[in-house]
């Protein structure tokens, strides 16, 4: 696209929403993601509420796991919230023109995301282990075929984990650009976009955590 042509057309536009295209697009995309997770989460809730007590072992299977893994999961929640705070700090730093601190905060965010993924893996192993010990189900992913809770847990946290992993990949992209010196106190769009996504992922986890571990 020829920049001068684009500029000429942009100068002759209706005011629009006043929000930049990127940000508006990101919000709309996140609205779509909200529905995706809303559907997954309502499926999990609906399954846990099956009134037929003979087949509804959702809570029975969850109970021993939630009791044991709650500490790790809480820590993990804290790690993810913290990494969300780091992104905000990174934006704050670049707004003040502080390149060095921005990079530090972004690296810390990356560590937070990676740590979350590692811990999530631990939790999966833990769940499969406990189901095996308590109920004699097959080890590993196959436990999901016998336990509805495990199936719902793997699917919901798996897709959330996938979003975290995608976030980490996006962060790598942002980091390459940060080290290249692409961002200035006025131009830091990519960090902001990534931040929006990262907060969303964080928010979804808080709801998932509540549903899978607490209530």
């Amino acid at each position, binding site marked *: 696209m020829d920049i001068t042509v684009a500029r000429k*057309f942009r*100068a002759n536009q209706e005011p629009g929403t006043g929000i930049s295209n990127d940000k508006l697009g990101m919000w709309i995309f996140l609205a779509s993601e909200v529905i995706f997770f809303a559907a997954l989460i309502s499926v999990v809730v*609906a399954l846990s509420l099956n009134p037929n007590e003979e087949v509804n072992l959702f809570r029975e299977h969850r109970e021993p796991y939630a009791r044991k893994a709650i500490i790790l999961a809480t820590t993990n929640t804290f790690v993810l919230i913290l990494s969300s705070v780091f992104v905000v700090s990174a934006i704050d730093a670049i707004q003040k023109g502080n390149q060095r601190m921005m990079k530090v905060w972004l690296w810390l965010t990356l560590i937070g995301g990676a740590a979350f993924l590692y811990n999530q893996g631990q939790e999966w192993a833990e769940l499969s282990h406990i189901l095996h010990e308590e109920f004699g189900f097959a080890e590993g992913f*196959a436990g999901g075929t016998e336990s509805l809770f495990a199936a719902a847990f793997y699917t919901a946290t798996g897709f959330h984990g996938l979003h975290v992993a995608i976030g980490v990949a996006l962060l790598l992209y942002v980091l390459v650009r940060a080290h290249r010196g692409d961002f200035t106190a006025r131009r830091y769009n990519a960090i902001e976009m990534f931040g929006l996504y990262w907060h969303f992922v964080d928010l979804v986890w808080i709801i998932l955590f509540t549903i899978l571990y607490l209530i």
Partner: protein
Amino acid sequence: MAKTVRTFLSQFLGRIPTMRLGVGVVAALVLMSLTISITYAQGEVPTQEQNMAGAVLGIFLALVGLGMLTVVLIGFVLWATQTKIPFLPQGEPQGIARYFSFSTDHKVIGIQYFWTSFAFFILGGIMALLVRWELALPGLFFTTTQYNQFFTMHGTIMIFFFIIPMLTGAFGNYIMPLQIGTFDMAFPKLNTLSFWLLVPGGLLMLASYFVPGGTAQAGWTAYPPLSILASKQGPGQLLWGISLFIAGWSSIVGGMNFLVTIMNMRTKGMSYFRMPLFTWNIAVTAVLQVLGTASFAAGLVLQVMAMTFDFPFFDPVRGGSPLLWQHVFWFYSHPAVYIMILPAFGIISETIPVFSRKPLFGYRALVFATCGIGVLSFVVWAHHMFTSALLPQLRLPFMLTTMLIAIPSGVKIFNWLGTMAFGKLTLNTSMLFSLALVSMFVIGGISGVMMGSIPVDIHLHDTYFVVAHIHYVLFGGSAFAIFAGIYYWFPKMFGKMLDERMGIWHFWLSFIGFNLAFLPMHAVGALGMPRRYADYAPEFTELNFVITVGAFLLGFAQLILVANMAYAFAKGKQAVDNPWGARTLEWMTSSPPPHHNFEEPLTVEHDPYDYEWNPPYKPLPETAPAVGD
């Protein structure tokens, strides 16, 4: 050839990071699905030859996926290290080669969508004719499995790969930015991605025909346990799910792009209430696409999990529920029928005022009716489930919301009639198809209201009456509007006029074939013939034979459209800028428009259908074929 390959490579490797992202996603999904098909091929499947075929195809496509991933990784490294490859060509390809490239021009993408979905229309049509061939006479011609596959693929292809991409992808992409006077979409690269996600999605859908056990056979609705059982016969059902997941991404990305473009990029003076109705309908459709499709994606995730890992989501014995899928699916698929009909309403809201030479009657009422349909479409989904052991107390509210939708739909019908009243009508092909939509959609709409009432639905559910209804709204509605749109915008898109004589033949044969095929379905349905069965009781023979004759007539009529387009490219009359004397902005530029749509940015000072308002426009061209005056 070598040049095309090099252009492709250069675009993969160097120029469009978004494409790499998309290719990476698709590669991962292709890899996943085909690894699974290899696993199937080694397991228990019908015959040895099929095992071999499946394994070979699986390995081949897995290698393709691996190759794509490698290209993505190389591309990332090249980008991160800022390396340039000298021998690869730079810049946009020109001429025909544009349509085989990752062009970011919304007009090129619109045309890519146009031909892709048109090809799928032909394919889906052939499937429909095969279904009708089987049902022409009682007894079995194909095997029942083949029959199930035909109607499953017919429904899936027509809905997800013809109507939705044709209306939103082709017309939405090409016409909407022109109508709001902008130079391109808000995210041109995401637009490219949106199209190039549809292609692997469609190819995967077709590839499912060649895996052991054949393609999906659980209907386009894929209710469990049918779909889960089908997936035990081979990976076709699974490929169906993954293919739609990819196509769903294409839809979400496209919808998001439309919304941002419409909200942020209108030219000066184009306030919301000066936008042409087609753009309004695309905007509401985009909301439905963005919000609804995500729910479908979640449902597909559950299906894929249940198929591959045998997760018990839909198995009542292990605590799951088959109804889960129906809720999640219809939460998308009811809005999806409005994704398929709203842009169609938009198209005829353009053609009717133009060919009546009158301003659109009740512009604001039409806009609010469109928004009303958009909102209501999210709260009616359970009317598809009146007989599915839905909580009885829930039926009544869903019946009421369903009937409420008739109000905004009726507003639209009456506004179109009001537009035509005392107008100077031009009955050319585009207008005839628009009129066909108005009349046929009334029939489809009324049969919809009938089935929305619980006692009637309990009798008619899963009979041919439902098939008649869906075809009256989707063929009589969406497809007729697509034809109206093709005859109306073909001069703008390709710079050639379609032949009116052939067009009239196309219209009348389609219209007669359509009614011959689908009107008797109401009768056989009300008499109790169930849908989706390969055979039927002998008392339905006569009507079914008539239906089949009508279907083949309808199929034949579409060949005229193909011939007409071929003729237009070979010998068609050159189109002038504004052959219909329309007032919307897409006609204020050359046919086809230049690279940036308009030579200079426009400022709008009038309403879109203001036929009394004259000055800065050129008078109606002399060559305008059969337009009024």
